[in-house]
């Protein structure tokens, strides 16, 4: 019997190298003669550039060049990075220039680059580049930005409305007309940065002999970087390669193609030397895309039994100064608001406001956590107003398991139907409540209050569309060495992609993961590739790998049958060999190795290829998966609030999640835990502050708080496996799932702990001073 590896907590292939410090991250790439870059960036949120004097910088010993937009233009077809996802709802095209030449629209926007012998010298010289600015008024708060008479973010604009769209279904007016109760909420949500521990960076090298340009970049989407560079540099694909080294975390913003990628590429061509740029953490705060503010105005209509009749409202979404991705974030938010609940009528209006700040693009969760927070706040509100338990209101409104697949009359950004494919949401809630001791909580709470402690419990359910299509390319190839090589357009950013794909492929090709190599994120390795985002790789690349490996397995067995003169049914692949199974009348252990088969299939001049199946032992697949596979789950959080300091301690945290069939439980747990940490940060800690002039206020990791080991609770995980009917493995994505429900459950728990003070929380994150202020206000009301 072949070894089974699918579904096992197989150890990661990535680990031995990383644990020894032998990974190769972007700042570890070394090219002979390599120079280093530092960027000159705007200190102003909005200004006109009157002139750039580079003379003093050029005089520094060790400086090779100082380049501005004018210096780049001879190498560029266009100054703009055109990357926005298509949508009919744009009112303005706001593409980023490779370098700002006439106007800067956010603090941190790159204006010039210094190329020098070392980063130290480049940074010295960058300080000496003298940019003459005429300051312009800035739009900082997205609510003000859309007000009449607000300063335009771009001086040639009439207003700051980037896009607007409506979404909905059902007769919303009738739903509200017949409602027993209508409740409204105003909710402010802020997310913040991704803060992968490795910042961004890139290295470009140009070989003048072959006119080949290679860009190593810490990117989640090297193929889209290649396409942008092909367009901007006017080079053909054969003259360019984009490669990702080891990536020290992505979390969303590394899917964006950045100005620095273009500038460093041009500099390498112009100077004939490799050039490296490594972002520092301050730059990460002021230049790497973020998710920031959303303001929701929502109303819910319910009947006398607390059943939802309809939800309507609006989202004001802060877009930042440029379109670095599209309208996808608020699209996700609006589209996923109904979540796991039956909402018969729905209408949302969404506006995207330009502001003079870093562009906004997805951070792990990508608009979904905001939707989950909003609907869960509404559920809590209905429960409070109607005197019902919070879980009872949810139970009554959850989509039942027998309604799956459940079609919602909404369309995704690509015009596809929204269909919740599988899952048992009521079971998820029920088992989470049991695990968390929801029933007994009032007793615990009463006892705690009697001893002067304020504990609370909260709940949130969620669904998360994962595995966004249309496909991910995977090639599976057996080499003459007997090794199985896997190549994917997907990118490994720490989530264990190599292990996951090796596991899927090994399942069909001998069960030995150590015999499988996986190449990710290299445009020379796969002709197509979409990349890593949207909890998509296990679904998309996993499926292509599964199908490709199946085809290779089929061919291996057919050829082996020919070579061993044995029927296919009598063969099995074990490690890197095909054996004849032990059976009566047959000599056991007749075998041929994968390497021998690959040799035979590689062809020998003048000889026919055995088996009549064509040469080679490989298959390439792009399995089309248009519909998203919906992961789901429930969180119950128990917290203690210190009413003097406003400090929140998470006492217990139960996360039930259903990501379909599990390929590797250990990796799934890791994703669920990491996402949870991110969600706790969004609930309690992470705040990317700006003042009213658009100056960032939190530009280091002491001011901007990431969750650390002492704030992070041990998470109690519950796994449910409802296989997705949409792909042959039955898998759903998990990367973002932990983030989505966390703020809803935690804020619900904090509010519950503070019930004696009649506190209502309508925002994330909530800081200790804000909690103290809410308690004070509550006491004043009492």
């Amino acid at each position: 019997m072949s070894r089974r590896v699918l579904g096992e907590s197989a150890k990661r292939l990535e680990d031995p190298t990383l644990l020894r410090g032998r990974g190769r991250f972007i700042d570890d790439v070394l090219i002979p003669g390599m120079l280093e870059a530092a960027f000159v960036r705007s200190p102003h949120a909005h200004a006109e550039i009157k002139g750039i004097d580079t003379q003093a910088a050029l005089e520094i010993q060790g400086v090779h060049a100082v380049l501005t937009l004018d210096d780049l233009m001879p190498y560029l077809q266009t100054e703009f990075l055109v990357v926005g996802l298509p949508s009919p709802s744009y009112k303005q095209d706001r593409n980023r220039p490779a370098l700002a030449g006439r106007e800067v629209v956010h603090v941190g926007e790159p204006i010039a680059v210094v190329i020098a012998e070392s980063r130290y010298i480049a940074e010295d010289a960058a300080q000496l580049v003298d940019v003459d600015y005429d300051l312009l008024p800035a739009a900082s708060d997205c609510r003000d930005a859309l007000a009449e008479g607000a300063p335009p973010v771009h001086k040639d604009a009439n207003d700051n409305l980037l896009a607007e769209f409506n979404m909905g279904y059902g007769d919303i007016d009738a739903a509200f007309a017949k409602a027993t109760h209508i409740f409204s909420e105003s909710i402010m949500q802020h997310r913040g940065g991704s803060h992968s521990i490795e910042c961004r960076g890139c290295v470009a090298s140009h070989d003048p002999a072959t006119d080949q340009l290679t860009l190593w970049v810490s990117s989640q989407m090297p193929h889209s970087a290649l396409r942008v560079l092909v367009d901007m540099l006017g080079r053909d694909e054969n003259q360019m390669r984009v490669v990702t080294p080891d990536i020290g975390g992505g979390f969303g913003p590394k899917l964006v193609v950045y100005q620095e990628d273009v500038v460093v590429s041009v500099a390498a061509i112009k100077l004939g030397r490799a050039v490296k740029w490594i972002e520092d953490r301050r730059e990460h705060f002021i230049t790497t895309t973020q998710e920031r503010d959303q303001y929701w105005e929502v109303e819910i209509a319910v009947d006398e039994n607390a059943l939802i009749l309809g939800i309507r409202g609006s989202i004001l979404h802060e877009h930042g100064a440029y379109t670095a991705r599209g309208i996808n974030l608020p699209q996700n938010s609006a589209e996923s608001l109904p979540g796991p609940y039956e909402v018969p009528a729905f209408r949302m209006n969404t506006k995207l406001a330009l502001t003079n700040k870093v562009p906004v693009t997805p951070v792990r969760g990508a608009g979904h956590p905001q939707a989950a927070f909003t609907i869960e706040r509404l559920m809590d509100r209905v429960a409070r107003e109607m005197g019902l338990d919070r879980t009872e209101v949810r139970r009554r409104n959850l989509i039942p398991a027998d309604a799956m697949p459940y079609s919602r009359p909404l369309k995704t950004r690509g015009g596809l139907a929204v269909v919740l494919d599988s899952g048992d949401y009521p079971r998820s809630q029920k088992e989470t409540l049991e695990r968390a001791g929801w029933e007994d909580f009032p007793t615990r709470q009463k006892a705690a209050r009697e001893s002067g402690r304020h504990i609370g419990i909260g709940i949130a359910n969620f669904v998360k569309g994962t595995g966004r299509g249309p496909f991910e390319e995977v090639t599976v190839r057996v080499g003459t060495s007997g090794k199985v090589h896997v190549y994917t357009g997907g990118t490994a950013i720490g989530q264990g992609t190599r292990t996951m794909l090796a596991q899927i492929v090994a399942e069909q090709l001998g069960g030995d993961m150590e015999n499988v190599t996986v190449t990710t994120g290299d445009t020379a390795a796969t002709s197509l590739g979409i990349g890593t985002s949207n909890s998509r790789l296990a679904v998309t690349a996993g499926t292509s790998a599964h199908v490709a490996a199946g085809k290779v397995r089929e061919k291996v067995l057919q050829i082996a049958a020919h070579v061993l003169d044995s029927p296919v049914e009598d063969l099995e692949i074990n490690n890197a060999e095909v054996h004849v199974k032990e059976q009566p009348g047959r000599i056991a252990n007749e075998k041929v190795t994968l390497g021998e088969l690959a040799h035979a299939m590689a062809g020998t001049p003048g000889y026919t290829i055995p088996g009549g199946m064509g040469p080679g032992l490989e298959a390439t697949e792009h399995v089309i998966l248009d519909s998203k596979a919906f992961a789901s789950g429930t969180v119950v959080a128990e917290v203690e609030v210190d009413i003097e300091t406003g400090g929140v301690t998470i006492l217990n945290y139960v996360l039930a999640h259903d990501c379909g069939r599990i390929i590797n439980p250990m990796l799934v747990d890791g994703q669920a835990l990491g996402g949870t940490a991110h969600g706790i940060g969004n609930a309690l800690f992470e705040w990317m502050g700006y003042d009213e002039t658009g100056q960032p206020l939190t530009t280091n990791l002491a001011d901007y708080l990431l969750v650390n080991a002492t704030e992070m609770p041990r998470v109690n995980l519950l796994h449910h496996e409802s296989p997705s009917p949409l792909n042959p493995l039955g898998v759903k994505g998990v990367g973002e799932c932990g983030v989505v429900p966390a703020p809803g459950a935690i804020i619900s728990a904090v509010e519950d702990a503070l019930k004696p003070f009649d506190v209502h929380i309508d925002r994330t994150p909530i800081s200790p001073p804000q909690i103290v202020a809410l308690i004070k206000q509550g006491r004043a009301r009492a």
Partner: protein
Amino acid sequence: MGEKRRVTLEVNGMPYEQDVEVRLTLADFLRHQLRLTGTHIGCEHGVCGACTVLVDGLSVRSCLMLAAQANGSEITTVEGIAPSDNELHPLQEAFRDHHGLQCGFCTPGMLTTLLEFLRDNPSPTERDVREAISGNLCRCTGYQGIVDSALDAAERLRGQDKTTVPDGGHAL
């Protein structure tokens, strides 16, 4: 070019004598002058802990120390933890077994920090471990795998000869 100083030091048991610019950080010296790129730089302002190395057995943020200040020191980096090319240190083994790393970028700092901590605290509680790594940021794991790795490593190390943990003369 700035002023230089000659430094003599030992890194992972290997002696070096090098001229360094006085403003060169220890992190950049290790990474770019000695090409020991296992030590990672995550914030360059001493918060994230990714660049932690052991200087004479004590954990140090190598982004906040100058190479010139390390003159005469014995330094251990992540590359110096495994006993050989074929074996991992028990702490590294535990990280692999308990999914103590995902992207691996914070890992060198976690390992060096825990190496010092477990040497000085062979029987820690979970709370102790969390305190010990509270100055090291990880954005991938939610820390649970790291904490479990450390607790398991403590157990593995308790069964071992203590000399496998570099102590730089600071063993208690």
